[in-house]
């Protein structure tokens, strides 16, 4: 190759082996390592991708591999420890499915949404018709009830990786329901997906008419298949199972339908039951967090995420002494209703063992509880308390004297 006139394109196309060698690469004067992307430049011009030096990936939940024996995808965790700001990249958004499901390959031209049941005018919409309605874009988190299924997991990805946040674009469900004309006496809707198991959940009509969205957009593009392409119901602040993917049908009804997905949530205690729809105020420090390593005493920026199913985050407090004293953190992102909110806290580590905690307060003034608070409420010992609803208790991270960080509950 002529060194004066390098045929860069030819090099990229033909020089896969050379590119591989270059990946190990010599250092240039500026001290940066130069490598060659593996894809053709034409492909990368059409559709960009992240640096090959950025390797953050999702992993299946600790107790269950995906794909499983049936080839089904179950629950896949998002790497919270690697993320900045409040938007989860769509490729890293956590994934959970009804039963474990095959991700359906839906042709949007064939997809339909039917609204029927206790309505004056049953309606069927094509995707094109839905996109002609007035729309909104809103930033909301989605969190699985099973997030933090076990308190003792090692990393923040394992303990809290079943929550993610995105910008969602779609039609207010209330608008579509009004278009169909909801009849008096209706009190619930049953929303259903088009995947092979046709996962369905009962949702209060009051919530459906309040702030739910029938979404076709996510982070500026059509919703990804793993997130429900081409249509997903957003039920802000409610557990992930209600955010029906591949939405194909909404039936307006006068009773709780006790679907397969509903029945898994039932409990005899009305107080426990009251905690099953909406996610309580919750926060977690993502840095420093379990499995990470501090580089010795000095300045660190403690950061993490806070969110609540009841509204926006009003404030976050940090404790660096295991919960004895608390100081206000700063909100470093917009604090939006039912959205992840990024916080930061200036901290000088003295090199001694300590326990870091965060707790948030939401719009309603509800303060995120500790496990001890929850145990006291149910009258159970702290180490044995079964937390009802999603576990939103305070997460302690223990920083050892050698700078290694561990789950304070493990």
């Amino acid at each position, binding site marked *: 190759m002529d060194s004066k006139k390098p045929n860069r394109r030819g090099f990229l196309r033909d020089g896969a082996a050379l590119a591989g060698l270059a990946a190990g690469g010599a250092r240039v004067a500026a001290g940066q390592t130069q490598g060659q992307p593996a894809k053709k430049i034409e492909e990368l011009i059409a559709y960009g991708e992240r640096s090959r030096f950025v390797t953050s990936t999702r992993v299946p939940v600790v107790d269950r591999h995906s794909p499983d*024996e049936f080839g089904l995808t*179950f629950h896949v965790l998002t790497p919270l420890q690697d993320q900045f700001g409040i938007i989860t990249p769509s490729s890293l958004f956590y994934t959970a*499915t*009804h*039963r*474990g499901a095959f991700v359906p390959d839906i042709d949007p031209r064939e997809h339909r949404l*039917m609204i*029927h049941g206790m309505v*004056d*005018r*049953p*309606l069927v*919409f094509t995707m094109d*018709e*839905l996109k*002609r309605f007035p729309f909104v874009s809103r930033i909301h988190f989605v969190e699985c009830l*099973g997030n933090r299924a076990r308190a003792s997991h090692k990393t923040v990805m394992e303990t809290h990786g079943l929550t993610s946040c995105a910008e969602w674009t779609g039609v207010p469900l209330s608008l579509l329901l009004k*278009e169909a*004309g*909801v009849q008096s006496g209706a009190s619930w809707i049953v929303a*259903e997906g088009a995947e*092979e*198991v*046709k996962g*369905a959940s009962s949702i*209060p009509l*009051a919530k459906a008419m309040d702030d739910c969205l029938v979404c076709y957009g996510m982070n500026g593009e059509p919703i990804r298949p793993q997130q429900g392409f081409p249509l997903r119901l957003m039920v802000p602040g409610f557990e992930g*199972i209600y955010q029906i993917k591949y939405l*194909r049908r909404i*039936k307006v*009804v006068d*009773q*709780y*339908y*006790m*679907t*397969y*997905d*509903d*029945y*898994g*949530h*039932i*409990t*005899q*205690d*009305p*107080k426990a*039951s*009251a905690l099953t729809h*909406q996610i*309580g105020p919750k926060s977690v420090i993502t840095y420093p967090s379990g499995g990470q390593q501090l580089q010795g005493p000095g300045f660190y920026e403690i950061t993490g995420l806070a969110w609540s*199913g*009841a509204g926006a985050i009003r404030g976050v407090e940090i404790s660096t002494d295991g919960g004895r004293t608390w100081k206000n953190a700063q909100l470093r992102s917009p604090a939006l209703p039912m959205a992840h909110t990024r916080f930061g806290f200036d901290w000088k580590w003295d090199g001694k063992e300590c326990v870091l905690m965060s707790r948030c307060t939401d719009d*309603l003034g509800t*303060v995120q*509880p500790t496990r001890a608070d929850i145990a*006291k*409420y149910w009258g159970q010992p702290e180490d044995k308390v079964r937390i009802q*609803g999603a576990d939103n208790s305070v997460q302690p991270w223990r920083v050892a004297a050698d700078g290694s960080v561990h789950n304070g509950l493990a």
Partner: protein
Amino acid sequence: MGASTMGLRRLLLLTAIFGICQTGWTQSPTYGLGKTPAPDEIRSWDISISPDGKELPPGHGTAKEGAALYVRKGCAGCHGPNGWSGGHAPTLISSKNHPPNSVPCLAPCVNDSNAMAIHSPYATTLWDYIHRGMPIGREGTLTPNEVYSLTAFLLYKNDVIKEDEVLDQQSLPKVKMPNRNGFALPPPYKHGESRLAGYP
């Protein structure tokens, strides 16, 4: 006779039109988008079964017929010949005499030994789920008779109904499930209200 039938039809038509106009006064469509599905289309899409069973299709089945289908349709392959030792799929038949499944149960996870036939307050939940979600990979292929039979088989094996009991549109919703009174609904949703007063 013919004239009176026609008169009745005309009356029904007028009632229908009047009905549409009347609702039109209170809540009229603003955008005029979407199409009105035909009743047949709604019926073929609507697979929801309410606890009172009003959407259940005609058909019937018994536990004996279900036992044969349990093998023939491949259920035993994943759930085990006894309904609990399949390894990969959730426990269907609960018994104090067998160990809990070693494989974590599928969502929604109640717990491995807590089979749906014991835990769901309504038998309609079983019928609905078998109908929409089973067998895996061939969902939606079971006939109503087959779903009634398989539901009867699971309820019988869990000591909820007798072996010769026939399940159909009328009898299925009346099955007295052991956990009938074992659940409470969340309180009515209100925007901007906390989940549970006094909860920390």
